[in-house]
């Protein structure tokens, strides 16, 4: 697998739906989320770990996610995030947008363009 570095703009645009998707599966905390992202993207999405938190905070401020502090069994304090109704709404909208774009690109960049089949 080769690495594709995403442009800054694309990163910024995709991070929000990505985080929402991860949180849709269940509540999680920062470190875990980053591990998930790394794992899922196979390294395509590379950002410094610190940069994740401001995005989470922004999402929370916008009402897409909520957070709570949880003390783990080993006594480690972790801030857990979970998705809200608003967040689900936004995710759905984002998903529709991304998919439609994906579809367009798939069509025109696909191996056998449809107009050639006729």
């Amino acid at each position: 697998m080769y690495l594709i570095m995403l442009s800054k703009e694309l990163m910024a645009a995709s991070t929000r739906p990505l985080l929402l998707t991860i949180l849709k599966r269940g509540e999680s905390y920062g470190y875990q989320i980053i591990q998930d992202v790394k794992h899922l993207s196979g390294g395509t999405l590379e950002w410094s770990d610190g940069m994740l938190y401001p995005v989470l905070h922004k999402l929370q401020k916008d009402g897409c996610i909520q957070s709570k502090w949880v003390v783990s069994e080993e006594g480690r304090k972790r801030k857990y995030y979970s998705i809200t109704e608003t967040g689900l709404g936004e995710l759905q909208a984002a998903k529709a947008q991304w998919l439609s774009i994906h579809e367009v690109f798939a069509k025109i960049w696909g191996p056998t363009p449809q107009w050639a089949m006729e």
Partner: protein
Amino acid sequence: MFDLEKTIKEWKRKLRKNPAYEDGDIEELESHLLDEIEHLKEDGLSNEEAFLKAIEEMGELESVGSEFYKTRTKKNRPTPLWQHKKWIPILLPNYIKIGLRNLNHDRGNTFINIFGLTTALICCIVIFTYVKQELTFDRFHENSDQIYRLTFQEINRPGARHFATTSPPMGPALLETYPEIEEVVRFRFVDSNILQHQDQQFYEYGVAYADPSFLKMFNFPLEKGNAITALNDINSVILTSEMAEKYFGEENPIGKSLTLDNITTLTVTGVLAPIKQNTHLHFDFIISFQSFSPPPGYPVTVESWGWVSFYTYVRLREGTNPDELQAKFKDFLVINMGEDVGENRILHLQPLSEVYLNSDLRNASTHLLTGNRGYIWAMSAVAAFLLLIACFNFMNLSTAQSIRRGKEVGVRKTLGAQRSGLIRQFLGESILIALLSALLAIIFSIPFSKFVSSLLGMEFIVRLEDFKFIIPIFFVIGLGLGMISGLYPALVMSAFKPVKVLKGHFFNKKTRFDIRTVLVVAQFTIAILLIAGSFIIRQQIQFIQERNLGFEQDQLIVLHMDGQELTRRYDLIRQQIESNPHVISAGMGGGLLDGDNGSVPIFSRDAEDNEGYPMNIYGAHFGFFETMGIEFIQGRGFDESYSTDSVSGIVLNEAAAKIFGWENPLGKHIQVDQITEGQVIGVTKNFNFASLHREIQPLVMFIPPTNMENLFVRVRAGTFSDMLTSLEQTWEEAVPDFPFHFRFLDEHLDEMYQADQRFFKLVTAFTVLTILIACLGLYGLISHFILQRTKEIGIRKVLGATALQIAFLLSKKFILLVAIANFIAWPITWHLMKSWMQNFAYQTDTNFLIYLLSGLIALTVAWLTMSYKSIKAALINPIYSLRNE
């Protein structure tokens, strides 16, 4: 040994310094860091390695912090407040914030400062435009630096004159003689003409004759017509666009005809484009020079070398040295006018740019516009005064304000501020205010200049195109003002000792010398100077207007009739006019006694030498002296009953008789150049026949062979409109084919002092502004003064002082300062006014009371300004002033 816990603590401390991170953030990041380290250690890294790796993964703290900050602010700010841009000095945002906060907090002071500075700057802009306008007359002509006017100076004789004019053959002869001269234009102005197109008939005062090269030498483009040929033919005329509209309306005037004085038919060959630039050449019509012939009875032709009445302009070839050329003119005069003239006359080349401001030459201002260098200086001085006063306000108020700023200075110093930093801060604030004022002034200068122009009837409207000069100049002035007026307060405030200031001690009470005192004195010195100055100017102008001119100027109407008609039918017309019941008497005369006289050499066989003295001449006729009420010392005026009077009667004024030194001048022989000769029949008391700026000159009066065009009519006091209607009726019966044209002599004579009047108005206007600004400053100052002494006032009241006593106590010091200002202002005013008075041959006595009065006015105004504040302070219940902390 690497201590992970300690390192993380260290790392957290570093994070806390960054204001972007809040407590929760840091803990969250810490938790992340710990997870990461744990994870890395599982991969077999040591504590230290894991920590470093985790930190690296975390990213650069500064930029991560910025992201945190961004999520928290509403505005989309690219960088957080504390991350200053490289080009903005550290603390600048803070300085601006504090500065604005201060301006807002102390609105009174801010208003006084900005209002004062803005007003002063607006005045400066207006005056600057005026001065620039006055200094740039006639600069718009192409090659204007190669254009010169010929002036003709007499030397080596008593009463020698310097003319702005020369004789008609001079120009063409010069052009022929010297290859350095490229072009010559002669101008001959005519007093007035009647111009007629179809049934439209007007008197015109702006008619001039000029050579064809006029349009080539000067940049007056034609809107219609051919500039090269327009003035070539006889009886062709070009007119300004206003005149074209007046006579022809919408029609195209080219090829149409205008009738001049009911006789000559002129053909319009050109219409000038509107003249927007400033030029001393002031005209409405230009007739081709060929069409010019001397008025009937003048003993001269256009070939007469002695007829010094023509403005002559020459354009030199590029690279010609005017001084070298002028040196050659002596030989030229000898060849053309004889040895005597060559020795006793100088022909000068006067640069075109200097023409407008040289009003001293004879004939310089009779038909051309002239300016006054002295008034330019005076206006510039007034502008400087105003700025100075506004600056002083600024300095005073800022220093006074420093009491409140003292705490700020103390805190800043305690926190490590350097003095230089504080100076920069305070200077920056004053520069900010100055620039703000400059900006406001520039914005308001256009409407203000329009207002002033209409108020004073003067043309100096600030135009948009002036801004390309004004903006950079006023930017620099604003910067400079801010620096100058801010420097002293900045130095004072930055020198505060934090320990003292924070305790509440500001100034060393023992220092008696206080620069504020000096500034207040300076302000009021200027104010008193201007008050006294405007009083004296007013008194002088009144004096001039009310002065006994040697004749009765009231109830005197001048009826004007162009051409030969009046002279030819004088007896009849006079009889008819005098038959009008409103008329007491009527008499014909030459000029309007406004100084526009001819001047010729006067000879006498009975004089000790028969060399000829240059004297003014004036044509008068039967009934003139009686109508004017001119008194005789000896002899009599012209009288119908003496048949010789109209041919050889000569009347001298006292000054002329004195020059000849005769004890009994009656019957003495007089020869008026080549015009006439005869015997003296009377000597009048000196009367003013020219502006009172000049002393009464010798005058020779006779019944001239030339035309006279003015009928002086003495009317009875009564209803003005009845009289005019009746007079017009009589006029129409007497001379039906001439328009009825009248003016009041006193009004006409007042026009000679228009420049003085305007000067007076301007000085008065600016005096009022000066006082206003000075008083505003005083008001601000006393407010601070009172603030400083609030407790003292309270205690005094508690101990039984009356409000009046307290008010007196508070304003005592300032009243004293204004009084001191008086003593400084008086001698300066006296000196300045003395030199201004040199403009006038007749000067009013300035009473010391005027000085006293202006001082008193300044005192009263100052006292009133302060009394509002101080009485208010004195009336406050001591409970409030004492409780207040």
